[in-house]
């Protein structure tokens, strides 16, 4: 039996609000499948589970805020699930085994398994009655004490509650993504009338859009206004979260800063040539080259790729490149491009586009924001030439790129005008010294001189 717990979706997250379940008891789930929507101070995220099996019981109701590590649901591996299906109905006095801490999560995946191990789940007061069943009874206007229990020992089962409520206590839940639900509500589309094209027939936003009279709409601010929290609330909460994290960073991390100018003539020539030959959808931005170089350099200088935890350095289990994305209306998030050093430029560019779009439309997943091992901020588009960033704890380095500008530059003893970018490194002096940081920036420079090998 595995417990699906409230994941840690960033160093600054202590608790999260379960906003919506995407699965029901009895449903089969696969590792990596989104099972719940969780709201943190910074964003609303779809959270994936780490086990393949059958959802046995949902322990926490939507709208509940719980600490990181709290068991949210019980998931039975398939073998056990088959056996469980032979049993009668779900009984309310069943005491589930104590949920295991998340150490059981496989470490090879790209999901939040890398997140700092959450504290073991605290004991839950659900031994008496499943809170969901009580909730279900309440919602159906039933008196819990008066319910007739048909389970072993007279226990009340879900079936009892549903029968007492006229068999329709809870209409079968249609599988759909949160965005699809919002769109359906907005566009007055009946989810039940759609054929889903997503995983296991889940209705996706595209299905709703194509069914909507008048065709597609993209998410508008109206969608956000319709949610329980207003945009102002969100902006405020995000400001608070950023303030807390950055205060901690500047208080705890003795930063040192390095900077170097990188000649981008070779990289830009290569890029223009590539783009000239490529259809629009496959064109690259200079950011793709810069990010790839930053990722490969992090692999070469692993001392900068990882976390400072409990007074020591813990190397990352791959280069998961955090990319600072500014949001319209203020604030930023830094989701990760997983294993960025192993992606070719085309894959990296596609991953970057996808990540930025999802960050800006509030559709990031838990695995996107969990534990980047080093972060890059690229303020070139904002017109500045140099950025010295603040490190995201518990990471130990932050790489900055400014705008690529034409500058007079001495090349082979001659003065010429070349495109140049200023690359900076902010690093944690507890973890490394300047010599290591210098090695990193030198590697970035060298890698960008051979763009065809990136």
């Amino acid at each position, binding site marked *: 039996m595995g417990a699906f717990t409230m994941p840690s979706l960033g160093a600054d997250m202590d608790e999260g609000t379960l906003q919506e379940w995407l699965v029901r008891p009895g449903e089969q789930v696969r590792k990596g499948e989104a099972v719940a929507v969780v709201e943190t101070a910074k964003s609303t995220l779809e959270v994936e589970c780490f086990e393949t099996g059958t959802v046995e019981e949902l322990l926490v109701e939507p709208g509940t805020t719980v600490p990181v590590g709290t068991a949210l649901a019980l998931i039975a591996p398939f073998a056990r699930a088959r056996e469980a299906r032979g049993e009668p109905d779900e009984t309310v006095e069943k005491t589930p085994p104590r949920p295991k801490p998340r150490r059981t999560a496989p470490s090879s995946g790209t999901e939040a398994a890398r997140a700092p191990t959450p504290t073991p789940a605290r004991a839950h007061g659900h031994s008496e009655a499943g809170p969901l069943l009580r909730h279900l009874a309440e919602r159906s206007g039933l008196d819990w004490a008066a319910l007739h229990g048909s389970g072993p020992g007279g226990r009340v089962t879900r079936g009892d509650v549903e029968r007492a409520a006229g068999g329709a206590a809870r209409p079968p839940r249609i599988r759909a993504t949160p965005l699809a639900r919002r769109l359906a509500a907005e566009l007055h589309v009946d989810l039940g009338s759609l054929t889903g094209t997503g995983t296991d027939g889940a209705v996706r936003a595209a299905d709703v859009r194509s069914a909507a009279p008048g065709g597609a709409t*993209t998410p508008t601010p109206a969608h956000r206004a319709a949610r329980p929290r207003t945009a102002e609330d969100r902006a405020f909460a995000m400001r608070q979260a950023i303030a807390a994290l950055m205060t901690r960073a500047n208080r705890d991390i003795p930063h040192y800063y390095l900077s170097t100018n990188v000649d981008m003539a070779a990289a830009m020539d290569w890029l223009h040539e590539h783009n000239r030959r490529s259809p629009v959808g496959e064109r690259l931005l200079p950011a793709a080259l810069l990010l790839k170089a930053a990722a490969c350099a992090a692999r070469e200088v692993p001392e900068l790729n990882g976390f400072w935890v409990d007074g020591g350095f813990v190397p990352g289990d791959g280069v998961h490149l955090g990319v600072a994305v500014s949001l*319209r209306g203020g604030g930023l998030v830094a989701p990760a491009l997983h294993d960025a050093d192993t992606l070719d430029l085309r894959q990296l560019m596609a991953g970057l586009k996808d990540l930025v779009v999802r960050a800006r*439309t509030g559709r990031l997943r838990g695995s996107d924001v969990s534990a980047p091992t080093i972060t890059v901020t690229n303020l070139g*588009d904002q017109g500045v030439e140099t950025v010295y960033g603040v490190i995201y704890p518990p990471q130990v380095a932050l790489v900055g790129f400014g705008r690529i500008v034409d500058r007079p530059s001495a090349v082979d003893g001659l003065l010429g005008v070349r495109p140049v970018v200023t690359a900076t490194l902010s690093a944690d002096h507890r973890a490394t010294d300047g010599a290591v940081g210098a090695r990193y920036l030198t590697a970035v420079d060298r890698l960008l001189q051979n763009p065809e090998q990136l």
Partner: protein
Amino acid sequence: MNRTEALELVKDSISRVVPGADLDALGPDDSFRDALEMDSLDFLGFIEALSDRSGVRIEDEDTQRLTTLSGTADFLVARAG
């Protein structure tokens, strides 16, 4: 494609990339990239949308010129023939 259609395509493509953009506040010769704070990814997304919808092949060299509603619409009309 006439010019009115081209202009609609341009606006539509911008809206795809910047949901909720106030296009009515935008003058025909304003730089929408600056006015709407589009970064290079947004701009590339705009070019992709525009190219998809108009069927016009937009070369990388052309993109730097596509900065105003009016200029971009003219470009589309000229290229679509």
